[in-house]
């Protein structure tokens, strides 16, 4: 008998697929790269500095807090991802202390105090953003004109997002016009490409511009198409499922279509649902914020309910609310409800006795 090597005894299963927490976090970060690069191109190198500072402060905060709780968790990638998300949620001209505050708030208050990775009830990056938004509203709501629109932008409109502009216009009493008409009347510019495409496809130039990413906004949220590419990558890698993004986008679009025209005096079924899907960070929120594992429900059914809830609140705040930040606040609200969803909405159990009892009763 040859000498036998020592064997490990452990519970089944003895196989595991290739996934790991860190792997997932890095893949999500990778999926954000196109939108990030576009943001840096659009708003200049200072955006890159903002993003790097956010990531740096988030990772540093995680590292230092890890010293306190005697663990090193920076390599699981979650702090990096939180930092990246915070950075992408900054307006392109914020002073650097704001992303630092946001990142530290995200890691320290939203995540670490509740028990670290997996134990937080609110999306850390979103909490960070909301915190600095309501603390430094002026900085956080002055936007930079994107490079592609720079020449044509009238001075009066500089620093406003289309969504913000329309909201202000409607709030100050203009009625009877769609959002695109309002923008056109004020002389809001559109890119050459969008105007050409508009002539060919018959889709409004502003809508095309927000789809491609030629609008003002936070660094990472402007280009719906690049965010969609990232989202589809995550879907293909099976890192996210379709339930949250699809139900979120659909429910907010349908509700906006039905009721969205009311504040502007257009009546029912006249809401501009397409522009609403493509602006104000909805795409970013639906694909990357609402799908955060920790703060969204576990089951597919629960995820669908979560998405519909997000869509409902986004529509509500946008159409009838007086504050901006509809997407962030709706997702945070649904984060609160997530544990309740998980308690009451569960997958159907195989061979559920109740179901059989019903069947027998019918028969």
């Amino acid at each position, binding site marked *: 008998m040859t000498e036998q090597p020592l*064997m490990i005894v452990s519970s089944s299963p003895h196989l595991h697929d290739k996934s790991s927490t860190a792997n997932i976090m890095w893949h999500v970060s990778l999926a954000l790269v196109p939108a990030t690069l576009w943001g840096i191109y659009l708003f200049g190198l200072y955006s890159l500095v903002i993003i790097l500072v956010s990531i740096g402060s988030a990772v540093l905060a995680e590292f230092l807090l890890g010293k306190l709780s005697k663990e090193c968790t920076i390599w699981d990638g979650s702090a990096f991802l939180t930092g990246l998300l915070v950075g992408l949620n900054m307006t392109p001209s914020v002073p650097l202390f704001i992303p630092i505050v946001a990142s530290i708030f995200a890691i320290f208050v939203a995540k670490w105090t509740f*028990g670290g990775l997996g134990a937080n009830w609110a999306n850390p990056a979103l909490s960070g953003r909301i915190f600095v938004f309501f603390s430094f509203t002026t900085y956080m709501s002055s936007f930079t004109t994107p490079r592609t629109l720079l020449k044509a932008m009238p001075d009066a409109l500089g620093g406003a997002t289309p969504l913000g502009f329309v909201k202000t216009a409607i709030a100050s009493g203009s009625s009877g016009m769609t959002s695109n008409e309002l923008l056109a009347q004020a002389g809001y510019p559109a890119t050459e490409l969008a105007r050409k495409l508009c002539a060919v496809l018959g889709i409004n130039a502003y809508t095309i511009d927000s789809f491609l990413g030629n609008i003002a906004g936070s660094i990472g949220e402007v280009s719906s198409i690049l965010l969609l590419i990232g989202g589809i990558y995550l879907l293909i890698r099976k890192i996210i499922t379709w339930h949250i993004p699809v139900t979120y986008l659909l429910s907010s679009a349908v509700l906006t279509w039905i009721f969205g025209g009311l504040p502007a005096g257009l009546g029912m079924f006249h809401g501009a649902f397409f522009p609403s899907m493509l602006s104000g960070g909805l795409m970013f929120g639906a694909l990357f914020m609402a799908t955060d594992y*920790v703060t969204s429900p576990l089951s597919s059914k629960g995820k669908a309910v979560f998405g519909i809830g997000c869509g409902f609140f986004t529509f509500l705040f946008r159409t009838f609310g007086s504050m901006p930040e509809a997407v962030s606040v709706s997702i945070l609200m649904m984060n609160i409800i997530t544990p309740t969803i998980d308690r009451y909405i569960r*997958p159907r159990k195989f061979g559920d*006795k109740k179901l059989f009892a019903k069947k027998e009763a019918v028969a």
Partner: protein
Amino acid sequence: MHAVPTFRKGGVHPPDHKVFSREQEIVRLPLPSELVVALSQHMGAPAKPLKAKGDTVERGEKIGESVGFISADVHSPVNGTIKEIKTVTLPNSVQCDAFVITVDEKQPGDASKPIDWRKLKKEELFASIKEHGIVGLGGATFPAHVKFTVPRDKKVEYFVVNGVECEPYLTSDYRLMMEKGKETLEGILIAAKILEAEKIIVGVELNKQDAIDHLKEIVKEKGWPIEVVGLKVKYPQGDEKQLLKAAINREIPSGKLPLDVGAVVSNIGTCYAIYEAIVYKKSLYERIISVTGEGIVNPKNILAPIGTKVSDLLEFCGGLQGDVEKLVSGGPMMGFAFFDTETPVTKGSSGILALHARKKVRRTPCISCGKCVDACPIGLMPTLLYKHITNLNYEVAMNSLSLLDCKECGSCSYVCPAHLPLVHTFKTGKKMGRKK
């Protein structure tokens, strides 16, 4: 167009790793000098020893008698002498008494004349199965005579034969279908006669297309009333609940048996054992074992006597190679890791795997991704179960989260990106919960 049948909820797709031993024909192990035949090789009560130290035994002689309703007889695989009775630990950490048999040099020659089973009555066939100690060879080792006892008020509409072999690595059922197809199918007919089954279905996963074709050909040629169904590859389709859902679209209610939906499920290896028991009066004292995995020099499918020590099997396969980290009895998804190569194989050992060390991934806290919820074929919420059990909250886990419906298939642990020991925790949770 008919979609390829499979079960709907959950399931995973581990790489099948069957390549190591897939093309290896079944070979008979040269008789080892010593066997260790355990008395608890089946689900239920251990058998009562009928022999004492120093007694001689003959091949096929009953040496352990079933005690109680769920139990099975144990037979000697060889002519030999009982050297001693000692306590052994089986891979599934069951401790029981075992006969250590010194094998005689001279062994009887093979095989009596075949018997025409069609002339036998149902009752005679049934008695024969009990007498020859047949148990389910899929791994659960449920005594066949208990399973085949159909209560008067129940009827067997479907006899579903499990040729799925959904566990990665294992190829013993595949080789059996390829090499002993006709005999196995006849065993299926015998079982169906005992059960008075109306329909017979053999479920095989599509990664064994040649086995499906082979069986179909025999069935067609003989005109037997057996339907061979190809199933989409998905783990754990070899579980009887998932198999029935896939093959006949019936769902066994929680806590009930296949008989409650008019079906009986048997492993294909069991059917072959039934054939041998009836036609050649051969008790269940040997079985086909896949000795495979990347850590085996020459992976093989071996016909070995029950009680063979793992060390003898490994030696016959050229020993271990590379950085072997685990020895597993059974498949890699539900099998048991063990460390002692003196451990004997039992009626339930479908395979012995030698697995190389795998990349260690750091465990993180649960990130609530819900992958386990999507993977669970039973529709449980593994992560919630895990949290409740680790907080010693057994009652919630047992009652509102249906811990006892978990069959430890391992799908949740397989997909968990946080690498949490989910199945391990559920096993512990069940024990602790029952204690309370």
